């Protein structure tokens, strides 16, 4: 059984060609800028106040007292919620939802195989993203074996924040590793993600040693994780290393509304703005001083 928040078919930005991207639920990092907060937990109740008509059906059906409607206001006490989702079933407005859906391995395989013709024509395949997909590695192994046999190209997007053995057993099936690097400075990494990055950097080196195809993805949150000093650190770390390229991902605010749905607080300051071309060009120019290949078109 695999916990999945979303399956995006005709996905074009997570690896080569036409792909199906499977977003797995659950992550062991909490990047403060994350635009997919619904993938933090494996199971979580989502609530959209804009859709809710305050009909009170959820209040009636919940035996733990999670929902309360007062003065046409819907208050949710999430600490009491055990994710039974009885409320989701009765919500005709779809204001209440589960963040994830549980798939049998075979169900997931079937969905992935639907677009086989498109993968073949475009040199595409399937990408497992998240969340941190590797946290469900024992379930993934079987799917990977199946897909490998069917000659479906597999890409994984991971932050590598775990023991190397976890990715090692999947590695033989994977064609490209999309590795998210948040920041090189250790203290800053802890501040931004809640986690030390020592293991992550070691794991990258271990993957490089295995001669795997690696694409690095760098979120650029202006003056937060990627100042000019930070980008120099990145350049220095990857200088001369066997990676295919580095992709710059400018910060955007398209995920903030999902914090509201999850009932989380968005920790990043409102004053943090989307980087303009000038900022991105500066980052690009600085990184370009090192022996690394950088993907162009980062403002498209």
């Amino acid at each position, binding site marked *: 059984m695999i916990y999945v928040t979303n399956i995006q*078919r*005709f996905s074009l930005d997570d690896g080569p060609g036409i792909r199906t991207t499977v977003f797995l639920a659950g992550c062991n990092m909490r990047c403060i800028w994350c635009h997919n907060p619904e993938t933090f937990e494996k199971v979580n109740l989502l609530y959209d106040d804009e859709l809710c008509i305050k009909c009170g059906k959820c209040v009636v059906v919940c035996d733990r007292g999670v929902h309360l409607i007062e003065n046409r206001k819907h208050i949710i006490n999430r600490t009491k919620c055990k994710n039974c989702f009885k409320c989701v079933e009765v919500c005709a407005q779809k204001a209440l939802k589960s963040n994830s859906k549980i798939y049998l391995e075979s169900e997931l395989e079937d969905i992935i195989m639907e677009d086989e013709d498109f993968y073949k024509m475009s040199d595409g395949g399937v990408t497992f993203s998240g969340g941190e997909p590797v946290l469900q590695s024992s379930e993934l192994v079987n799917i990977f074996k199946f897909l490998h046999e069917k000659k479906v190209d597999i890409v994984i997007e991971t932050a590598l924040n775990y023991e190397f053995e976890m990715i090692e057993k999947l590695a033989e099936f994977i064609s490209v590793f999309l590795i998210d690097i948040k920041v090189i400075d250790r203290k800053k990494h802890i501040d931004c993600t809640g986690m030390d990055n020592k293991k992550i950097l070691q794991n990258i080196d271990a993957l490089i040693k295995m001669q795997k195809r690696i694409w690095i993805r760098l979120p650029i949150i202006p003056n937060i994780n990627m100042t000019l000093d930070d980008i120099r650190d990145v350049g220095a770390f990857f200088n001369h290393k066997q990676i295919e390229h580095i992709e710059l991902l400018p910060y*955007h605010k398209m995920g903030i509304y999902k914090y509201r749905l999850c009932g989380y607080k968005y920790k990043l300051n409102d004053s943090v703005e989307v980087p303009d071309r000038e900022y991105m060009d500066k980052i690009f120019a600085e990184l370009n001083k090192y022996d690394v290949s950088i993907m162009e078109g980062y403002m498209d």
Partner: protein
Amino acid sequence: MYGNICGDITEFLDKNRRDMPIILREAYCFAAYLLLKDIEVNNTDILAGKWNWEENNGMKSPYPRGTYREIEEMQQCEICSKTDFLEIRDAIHMGLLVRSPGGHVVPGYDLFLNTGFDKTIEKIKKYIRSDREQKEKLNFYKSQLIVMKAAQECILRYAKEAERKGNKEIRNNCEWIAHKVPHNFYQAVQLLWFMHEFAKDDTQGIVISLGRIDQYLYPWYKEDKEKGIITYDKAFEIMQELWKKLAQQDHGFQNIILGGKDHEGKDVCNDLTKICMECTLKRRTEQPSLSLRIHNNMPEEIWDKAFQLICTGIGMPSLFNDEICVLAKMNSGVSREDAENFSVVGCVELTIGGQEFSHTEGLRINWLKVMELMLNNGTCLITDRKWSLKHSYRLDDINSFKDFFDWYVEELLHVTEKACIFIDNADKIYSFHWPTPFISSLMEGCLESGLDVTAGGTKYNNLSVNNAGMANVVNALQAIEDIVFEKKIVNITEIPKILECNFEGYEELRNKIVACPKFGNNIESVDLKLENLIRILCEYIGKLRCHRGGKFQAGFYSVQVHGTMGELTGASMDGRKSRTALASSLSPTQGSDVNGPTALLNSLKDLPMDKFGNGMVLDVKFTPDFMRNQRHVNAVKNLVKVYFANGGMEIQFNVIDKMTLLKAQATPENYYDLIVRVSGYSAYFVALSKTLQDEIIQRTELS
């Protein structure tokens, strides 16, 4: 001869028009129009000619047209009985059937450019001399002579006007082509425009398309280029002038189809293929409409040019799969050799230029109305008019989904049968009342048979049966299967009441209906229903023959009619509210395909498109910035390749404008499928917060 025609016309116009044989009357009207219409040439003009529909209107036939008029005529001519007449009239009133007949032809400009006026006139005269016995044929030959002479004379009028304005080039060209075969590319384009202008005059502007112009103009271009008297750029300049002329008529459905293969299977794209696309790229006008024939060996350069055009958001060219289109025409009774020369007329109707007259817009059936009539004992929910069902079953006698499905099939075929008889009868009126002698002069076989094209004079004489509301019907059938027969949430006898209330008071049930599987998401149970229905329908109409000797051919596209039919259709079991639009063409119901384009194309994969002799439309939408990224463009190209490799017939891409996004914001329920590129990833537009939606709208405006 000028004096002669003019004399005849004056006399004719003064006297009672109705006394004259219809074919001669139409020919004289046409001639009168060409000899009297305002013409204009300026000394800087590159091409002469102008088409003006308002001016033309009323000059022609004294018989007003229109569908109701047509059925009245049918009754007067005793072609159909009073009962049939009333029933068809009601069916049209209630939006079960829609008809807009006439025109819709690709004239044989090709053949004419290679024959010229003098030779054509000579040929007609030979027929007049040799076939004096048969009065009717003689009248037809005479009509051919009148229209040819009039056209020739009109070109000479342009020559005179050019002379007066000091435009020697146009004068010389006109004087030459008024008699002979064009001797260079420039003259060929000029003659093509004149013939097109006159063809539109002859049919009062009803859809006339131009066919494979990059093929039939190419010999002149090639020869001129070899002689060194033309360059690519000069040809581009001349073609742009043609584009300007074509753009005089908005929504003219003047389709031009480019590319394709020859009979040996070799690619035929050439400089003109590129020039035509570049003309639209430069001018950005919605006329002419461009289509492109695609096959495995089409050069990458042409793919790139086509996508360069698609990325502008102009919605062209429409892409056609050569192989499937040829098979579809063969299934409409066309020989392989002729089918390989197929063109497109109007929107997407497959036709053989200069050889086929098929009233491609002659009929459209509202599939969803059929179900409404079944559920209400033959009574229309909107107009209260009646249709006599084949079986008036009581709903409580329907015990299983299979019972219901089989009944639907019978009623759909029953409507189809009646409609086919109707259009075939209506078609008979045309040669009595609305012959088109000039179009006939451009159609292969008319002289040989001595018959006007409306009387079956040309080589292929099909009739066309178009369909609308397919996705609504299969979604409704799926909901009935799930909710009525499997989950038994509601009894079938309650359905008429629920739909009559337009789901008011049944919102929860409607939510359940909306949540049922929908066509277009790669879900087998519902996709298979459409496949079955379409196979049954195509097989049924494939066996019918029309009085002009041709076949009936199916079309699955809806132009704007899904809107007008929807306004006349009550609430339906797919969750659709009363008087709202039906699904467009073969597309899923608005906003119901939420799994993206690959799933949509998989849903269509097993449809028998090689039986769609009258074409189909599949419309896929993207936002402008999605197509700005080259990787995305390549992916879309691959999407097309897979779809065609799996037997797809047609696909077209629309790039969404700001208005659409504003509508999506206001009525999200119709736009669940709208994918927008956010930043590095794509998202469903309606799932974004208002602030983000606003940002995307603003961005769309800027691009």
